């Protein structure tokens, strides 16, 4: 029976790891390791003991189908070259047949052929199982994406908003929480009040933007840089056609960076064909911007129009 002292003696021959011993048994030591290992095997009884035990362990792994395909091949080509090791493998197989709970061995004419056929069976079963698992994962991911599309977009947009907004230093921010999480992003799925349902934020500037023309020529409006005392700028975005529905509005820089977005903007039937987008003033810096408006249509976003302006 092994004792801890024997274990420590074995561990003292730690110049070579268990993995290196395994490679030795499978004939896979490197050219630089091989001579060193061979010499140590003659000099060190501890290494000798470890290698003998590793032979048994490897034979067990082979019998219990715990080797990779490459290892199995090496085992059959290299490890089984000696009669002593072939006997060890036979005993390992006998142990498995005697004790293992899930023995599925079919009698085959030869020893190696029998093992090979068993491995082929196992390999194909595993292949099908992995394919089914991957399909289920993909289907589940797709379902989650479809269901949570809006939320995912909002989560993605958050870092952009944080990056664009400067560190607030105006007294206006003193009442806000000290964390830098900016609540500008309207994430509530409930309908955003465009008109009079709830008190609008304090709007100091109203800008009417015109959609780009049919030819694509943008009509760029000029917007003065909001002062420090201004809280928000309202962009009034007339729609080309009065279509009731739920709209999205995204404020982007000229190089496409998302600055601000608003979703679930409801335009009721017989309502004004216009969207009001209230943008916090501190998000606006000197430069060119565009507002992309989309409408929810049959689970997709339908582009409705683009509006351009320049902050001076």
């Amino acid at each position, binding site marked *: *029976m*092994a004792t*801890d002292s*024997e*274990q420590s003696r*074995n561990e003292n021959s730690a110049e070579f790891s268990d993995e290196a011993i395994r490679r*030795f*048994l499978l*004939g896979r*030591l490197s050219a630089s390791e*091989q001579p060193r290992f*061979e*010499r140590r*095997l*003659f*000099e060190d009884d501890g290494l*000798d003991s470890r*290698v*003998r*035990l590793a032979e*048994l*362990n490897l034979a*067990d792994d082979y019998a*219990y*189908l*715990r080797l990779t395909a490459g290892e199995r091949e090496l085992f059959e080509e*290299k*490890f089984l*070259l*000696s*009669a*002593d*090791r*072939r*006997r*060890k493998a*036979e*005993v390992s197989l*006998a*142990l*498995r*047949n*005697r*004790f*293992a*709970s*899930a023995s599925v061995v079919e*009698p*085959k*004419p*030869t*020893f*190696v*052929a*029998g093992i090979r056929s068993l491995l082929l069976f196992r390999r194909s079963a595993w292949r099908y199982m992995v394919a089914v698992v991957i399909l289920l994962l993909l289907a589940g991911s797709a379902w989650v994406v479809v269901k949570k599309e809006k939320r995912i977009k909002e989560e993605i947009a958050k870092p952009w908003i944080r990056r664009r907004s400067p560190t607030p230093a105006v007294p206006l921010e003193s009442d806000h929480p000290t964390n830098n999480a900016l609540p500008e992003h309207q994430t509530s799925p409930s309908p955003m009040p465009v008109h009079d349902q709830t008190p609008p934020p304090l709007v100091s500037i109203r800008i009417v933007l015109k959609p780009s023309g049919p030819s694509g020529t943008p009509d760029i409006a000029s917007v003065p840089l909001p002062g420090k005392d201004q809280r928000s700028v309202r962009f009034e975005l007339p729609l080309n056609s009065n279509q009731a529905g739920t709209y999205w509005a995204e404020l982007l820089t000229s190089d496409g960076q998302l600055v601000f977005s608003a979703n679930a903007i409801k335009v009721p039937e017989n309502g004004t064909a216009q969207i009001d987008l209230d943008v916090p003033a501190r998000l606006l810096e000197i430069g060119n911007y565009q507002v992309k408006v989309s409408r929810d249509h049959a689970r997709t976003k339908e582009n409705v129009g683009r509006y351009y302006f320049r902050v001076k």
Partner: protein
Amino acid sequence: MGRPHQTEKFWSAPAERSSDGALVWSIGPRRLIICQTELQTIQSGVALRLPPHSRDMSPAKTLHILKQEEFDRLLRWLDPEPEQAGLTYEKIRWRLVAILTSRGCICPEELADETIDRVARRVLDIQDSYIGDKAIYFLGVMNNVHHEYLKRPMMPRPPQPDDDVEAKESTHLCLEKCLAKLSPSSRRMIERYYAEDRRAKIDLRRRIAAELGIGLSTLRLRALRIRGKLQTCIEHCLVSEARP
């Protein structure tokens, strides 16, 4: 080099066929093993290691074999204590076989025996002057033997023997006998250690280790040592069953 060697006819000695198809002669404490490929070559009349004059002899060719006197001298050189010398001899032979197998040699046992034969024939010349680890001397001679092996024409790998159902049954019978010889705790450990499938392996072994109050590596060592005892017991059982 040494004294001229004398050859002896040995075909009159009874030979046994091992499970892998090799012929095995037991001569004193030594076993001379000739693998299938070598045997085929010898039977065809072209021996690999025969002296030239042997071609005039009968188809039963002669090979150099180690004389008892040389073998005894080797053991004494390894250790004055006979029992210890035998252990050292077996240890060296095992290591030679392990290394030659790792190098991909077909019939590594034969090359290991050839190595030992050469060392034994040189003991008379070196026993008084050699200084150093005697085991390392074997390593040097083994390298020479291996180099010569590499220069030989590539031998085909011995064909795998047909599945011997009878041999498997014998192995299973011997396994039962040897399991019965284990202590109850050892037997219980082996039953649990080997009664697992791939998925449950780690969990089961952790449970066993926890119950015994030992670590996983200690559990592994204990189980493998019991496994080693089973191996030795089963091999002895098979040999005794094979005898008429």
